[in-house]
């Protein structure tokens, strides 16, 4: 039975070997940022995001870095598992010498990291997660969020919807927190703007397991004037194909949350829906008038030889925000970075954004436009960039939504 102890010894030895302290900060040493993401599980989203970060790092470090030191990201894969992400966060902060954390696409992983960040007093920038809870109900002073939240993007579409004559709405959203938040926010804002609207059907397909034929039949049965779509990825592709085949979209306006993002529009190719009002990222349409937007797209294509996705933009802006925060803080101490993020203005490709003091939410907005087909590919036309600051609830409401402060 010695094998048992032998194994224990082996494990013990392995553990000991893996503990040698490696991080000792010196001037000239890189400033390390811990980046946790689902690089394998959500590869289609995470890869462009990572490339955006790497582009930003190249530019930042080319300009002499931050505080005279190079900025470095440590990329770690959490398998899309919140528990795993927390373990990695601990390792990045206590062993690898990261000064703050960022990352995650999935909202639940983002919330898990936010929770541990609040408890252990580490700064966490949630770049991609959309859940309203990240900055509101589960918000804490150490967690900041870059992207326009579910509420903000839904409010933009609701505003567009309120301008039409449509009264009877049907919704279809994946059956999980993001889908439910998105529908609730759309209903809330639209009902406020136009009290006579009626919601005649709500469909809740399981995420990435949509039975699109059945969903289309169910929506058709309700005979709505307009449809609000929150499905994305493979669900969206199936929904669009079945809906088009069966004529669901004929004579109806569809409002699609995120449906205009290249991540989702590109795989649809010439079957992309036409005439949907969507939030997305029309990188192909930028001209010299769009200044920084155009510069970013050009730089990205030059470096990676591929077209940018919305994830590329978010990754780029996340790295820029972190560099700006550390520069403003003048140090890599957690409290200094946290204080610097409060009210931090950042110049980004989409314009100037601010990390609000009241709820740590950045005022990054979204592009809203109408889908169309151009050269066999889905694009957004008649788009405009809406500033996120205009689509947030009043300060009093935000304070109520955010119990931690």
């Amino acid at each position: 039975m010695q094998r048992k102890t032998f194994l224990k010894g082996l494990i013990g030895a392995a553990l000991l070997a893996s503990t040698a302290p490696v991080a000792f900060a010196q001037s000239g040493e890189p400033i390390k940022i811990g980046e946790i993401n689902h690089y394998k599980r959500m590869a289609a989203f995470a890869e462009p995001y990572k490339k955006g970060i790497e582009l930003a790092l190249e530019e930042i470090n080319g300009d002499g870095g931050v505080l005279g030191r190079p900025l470095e990201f440590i990329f770690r894969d959490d398998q899309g598992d919140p528990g795993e992400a927390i373990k990695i966060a601990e390792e990045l902060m206590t062993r690898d010498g990261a000064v703050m954390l960022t990352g995650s696409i999935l909202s639940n992983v983002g919330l898990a990291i936010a929770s541990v960040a609040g408890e252990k007093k580490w700064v966490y920038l949630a770049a991609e997660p959309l859940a309203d809870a990240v900055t509101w109900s589960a918000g804490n002073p150490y967690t900041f969020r870059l992207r326009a939240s579910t509420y903000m993007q839904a409010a933009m579409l609701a505003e567009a919807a309120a301008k039409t004559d449509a009264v009877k709405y049907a919704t279809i959203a994946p059956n999980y927190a993001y889908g439910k938040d998105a529908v609730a926010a759309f209903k809330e804002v639209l009902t406020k703007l136009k009290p006579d609207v009626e919601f005649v059907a709500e469909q809740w397909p399981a995420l990435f397991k949509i039975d699109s034929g059945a969903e289309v039949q169910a929506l058709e049965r309700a005979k709505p004037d307009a449809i609000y779509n929150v499905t994305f990825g493979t669900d969206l592709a199936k929904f669009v194909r079945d809906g088009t085949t069966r004529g669901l979209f004929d004579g109806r306006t569809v409002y699609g949350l995120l449906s205009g993002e290249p991540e989702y529009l590109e795989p649809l190719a010439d079957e992309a829906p036409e005439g949907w009002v969507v939030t997305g990222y029309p990188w192909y349409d930028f001209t010299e008038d769009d200044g920084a937007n155009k510069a970013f797209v050009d730089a990205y294509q030059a470096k990676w030889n591929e077209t940018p996705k919305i994830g590329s933009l978010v990754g780029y802006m996340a790295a820029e925000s972190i560099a700006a925060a550390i520069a403003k803080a003048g140090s890599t101490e957690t409290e200094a970075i946290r204080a610097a993020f409060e009210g931090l203005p950042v110049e980004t490709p989409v314009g100037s954004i601010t990390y609000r003091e009241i709820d740590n939410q950045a005022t990054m907005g979204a592009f809203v436009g109408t889908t169309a087909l151009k050269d066999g590919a889905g694009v957004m036309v008649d788009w405009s960039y809406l500033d996120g600051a205009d689509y947030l609830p009043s300060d009093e409401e935000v304070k109520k939504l955010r119990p931690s402060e």
Partner: protein
Amino acid sequence: MGLFLAQLLTGLANAGALFMVASGLSLIFGVTRIVNFAHGSFYMLGAYVGWTLMQVLPGMVGFWGAILLAGIIVGLIGVIVEICVLRPVYSAPELFQLVATFGVILVIQDLTLMIWGAEDLLGPRAPGLKGIVRIMDEPVPQYDLALIAITPFVAFALWYLITKTRVGILVRAATQDREMVGALGVNQSWLFTGVFFLGCALAGLGGAVQLPKGGADLLMDFNILTSVFVVVVIGGMGSLPGAYLAAVIISVLNVFGVSYMPKSTLVLMFLVMVVVLMFRPFGLFGKEEVAGEHGQVGEPERPIKPAGLPVRLLVAVGLVLLGLIPILGSNFTEVLATDILIFCLFAASLHFMLGMGGLVSFGHAAFFGGGAYVAALFVTYAHTPMELALILAPLGAGLAAVIIGWVCLRSTGVYFAMLTLAFAQLLWSLVFQWGDITGGDDGLVNIWPSAWASSNTVFFYLTLVICAGGILLLRHAAHSPFGYALRAARDSARQAEAMGINTKRIQWVAFAFAGAMAGVAGGLFVFSKGSVFPNELEIARSFDALIVVFLGGVKTLSGGWVGGASFEAVKDYLTRFEYWRLALGLLIIGVVILAPEGIVGSLRKLGERLGVLNTGEDKR
């Protein structure tokens, strides 16, 4: 009426691909007794290969040719997997092969990502079948009608093959008694390989034929796996007509569920499965599993013996070494060790049920996650202190296990396993759906230990004491009269009952005990992470535990925690690399081939051969 008919047709069309994949799984299980977790991966490969071929082959002939070719190619890939990975481990303990197929899943996932890239591929439409037909004024896609027509044809061809040809006779004979078929001079290994080819080809066909209704993406493999297992189990493992009927029932019910109870999409098929198995414990067309399958394969179980003084001393030294981690290691080492210890207790609790009780559960995460949620809910809503929550967690999980065990133990073998999976899934969807209370998939956050235990070091010691104590308690239980009775029920239920042991009740108690111990681990987990999400109840979590128990060694006392510790440590290291799934998959396959009795079992063999350890015989 028109709508009703149209919905029925949608359901029938959906049943097509599902039936093809499910019939393949059913065939493979029927003949080889392998629970092929990788079946979804072959389905995914079928979609990708079919997509690529459709880009090359033009027109209508090209389209259908691509589907057929995709099936054949995937079948050949299946043959390679069977010969390289599964053939060496046919003689391993029952169900051990599923660990190998789990490794295959990981390998295929990474290879697919390497070859086809990360972006979702939209399936091409079928040439000539792009439009709709109006039936009673309702639009029905032409391709749906084509699918409805093709599926019975495939089913009929399979039925003919199985019932009317010599190959079919051999396959049926092997399904009933493969030893006898071998004794009659049939080359078993080629029969197995042939069946594996057919099964995988069907999965590939299913993947390719659904392309016009969807596409190919990297999440397909896991997404279809559960539905396929459900179909096979409802129909009865090994039964083709059963698989067809079940695929139709599930698909049609699903269509109506979507229309009339839109939120039912997560649970419907599991409810159907539970109901069917309550009344027909072996599925609609399944036959009772041949008694005595257990123990037929591989070596007979060894009697277990209590540890002698030297072993006890060595364990004590090991524990002291673990206790020194905070002094010798860093902050992160403590966190990693805490994680590993919790997982070890979780794995050990499953090992108790699986190794001692012979009860293979595919849904043990229900009790791990259940315990975690019990603790988290009490903290969130009643502000229960950590100490009390840690006691309530196993009580809650144990109670759940009592109820779930009562239902599941009506079935045996794979049906029992699938029922546990169904209940885990039901619990998962309850937590997932009931957002007002459980937070849905936004989870419950900010659940931290009491002030005295909030430092990583103190919490590590707390975990060490509870987990080491729990593992020792499980070991102690194995040596108690209860443990003896449990093993008797496992080895021969009939003889055990003749001796006056109420085998069902003993197994029920073991189920509840294992569930409660998993709940202990779950409770600790919440406080170590500060939050809990429905992921802890997911099938993937159950599989994690199952894999490590088999890797560690089912027929040993320490297999559970040894497997858990090695697997977690290796995974923590490997995930730092880009293609870690490929590496981990290959590693698992390697361990399976080199150590078919698990890590502990094979080390023990090695020790005996080298003369370091006494063989069990000497000690008796």
